[in-house]
């Protein structure tokens, strides 16, 4: 299967060159590359062979699989048949039992160091690894075998990256992420609950185009997907700055699409590209749908990000924290005076910036601006 070039395979399935270039453009955008890279991506995909992929499901819920099955640009059929050569995936493969295991073992044996492993789900370490077994082997043994011999391993979803929900307190089965369980493996973490399939595809496309994995942060997450705070790309950010908050489900602020910080939004502490790539064919994401972000891509968000509906303490920059409490309330009450109030808030912020040291929020913004340059 992996002998065919990607474009040849795509054209055989009726995907036009125009659609192919649109895909390359979307990938360049996801990777935060300028459009000048589109021809380079196209050229690489035209020449490269499809990489063989083993998709492992360990202590998982198949949520990342569900996410992948909903891929639209390209569709899952295009990905499975054309961009990669998916040799093993329990939820969608035809073979069962020994025949299924043979497909996996053949890839590990024949393509040692040349295939990509994708891992979904955590790895339970407690009691000899008995809490997840496939074909009589523990998840840990399987991960050691498959990830240890892979060219690279994509740990997709928060469970594979850091243990995720399975490792939430009290972590009954001793679950950890792939890198902790198999320290020798070359791992890229793509956390999220679930992972966004565009980040998986973009990582693979980056690899095919440049022959290397994308730039990673200290926690092995690609910067293109996890380098920006949700809060800084949030479409409701202006309401945070202006002190316009939803304070009760169904209140006027909720109807007007105001900031969800008071309702427990963890956007100020969450790093993920949800606001830009979105979900369900790019139509929406949790905050757009009116629910606070609960930092699903953060390490152990279930315990350290606090209750989902409790406000994060002391996030700097909220409209009311720049002595704008009354002004914020004023905006809520007196619509129509928006322009004037905005000018007042700007004035207050300006004087604050001029009079004192910059707060951590300003410093973070400056750092972000520097990083962008």
């Amino acid at each position, binding site marked *: 299967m992996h002998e065919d070039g990607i474009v040849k395979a795509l054209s055989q399935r009726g995907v036009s060159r125009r659609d192919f270039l649109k895909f390359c453009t979307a990938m360049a955008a996801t990777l935060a590359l300028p459009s000048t890279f589109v021809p380079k991506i196209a050229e690489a995909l035209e020449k490269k062979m499809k990489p063989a992929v083993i998709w492992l*499901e*360990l*202590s*998982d*819920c*198949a*949520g990342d*699989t569900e996410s992948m099955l909903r891929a639209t640009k390209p569709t899952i059929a295009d990905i499975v048949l054309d961009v990669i050569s998916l040799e093993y995936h*329990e*939820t*969608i*493969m*035809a*073979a*069962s*039992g020994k025949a*299924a*295991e043979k497909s996996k073992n053949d890839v590990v044996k024949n393509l040692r160091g040349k295939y990509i492993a994708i891992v979904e789900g*955590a790895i*339970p370490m407690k009691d000899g690894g008995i*809490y*997840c*077994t*496939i*074909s*009589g082997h523990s*998840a840990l043994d399987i991960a050691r075998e498959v990830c240890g011999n892979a060219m690279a391993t994509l740990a997709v979803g928060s469970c594979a990256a850091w243990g995720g*929900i*399975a490792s*939430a*307190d*009290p*972590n*009954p*089965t001793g*679950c950890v992420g792939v890198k902790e369980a198999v320290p020798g493996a070359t791992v890229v973490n793509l956390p999220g*609950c679930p992972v966004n399939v565009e980040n998986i595809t973009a990582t693979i496309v980056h690899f095919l185009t440049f022959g290397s994995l994308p730039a990673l942060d200290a926690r092995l997450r690609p910067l293109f997907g996890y380098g920006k705070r949700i809060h800084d790309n949030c479409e409701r950010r202006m309401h945070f700055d202006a002190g316009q908050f939803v304070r009760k489900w169904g209140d006027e602020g909720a109807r007007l699409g105001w900031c969800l910080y008071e309702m427990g939004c963890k956007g100020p502490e969450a790093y993920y590209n949800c606001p830009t790539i979105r979900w369900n064919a790019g139509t929406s994401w949790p905050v757009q749908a009116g629910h606070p972000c*609960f930092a699903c891509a953060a390490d152990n968000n*279930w315990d350290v990000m606090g*209750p*989902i*509906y409790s406000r994060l303490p002391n996030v700097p920059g909220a409209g009311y924290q720049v002595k704008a409490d009354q002004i914020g309330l004023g905006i809520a009450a007196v619509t129509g005076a928006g322009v004037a109030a905005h000018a007042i808030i700007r004035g207050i912020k300006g004087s604050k910036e001029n009079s004192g040291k910059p707060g951590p929020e300003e410093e973070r913004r400056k750092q972000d601006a520097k990083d962008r340059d």
Partner: protein
Amino acid sequence: MPKIVIDPITRIEGHLRIEAQVEGGKVTDAWSSGTMWRGIEIIVKNRDPREVWAFLSRI
């Protein structure tokens, strides 16, 4: 008395193992096992009931 073991059962969500005892061309006994357990029921104990949906939708 051959015993048939199918593990993993694919095209389902979750991990399943089926064992069947065959005698004279007939299945005389069979066992099914879920081969993965995370203890979500233990994890949600004592948590705020309003957020338990987020855990349980990930079973």
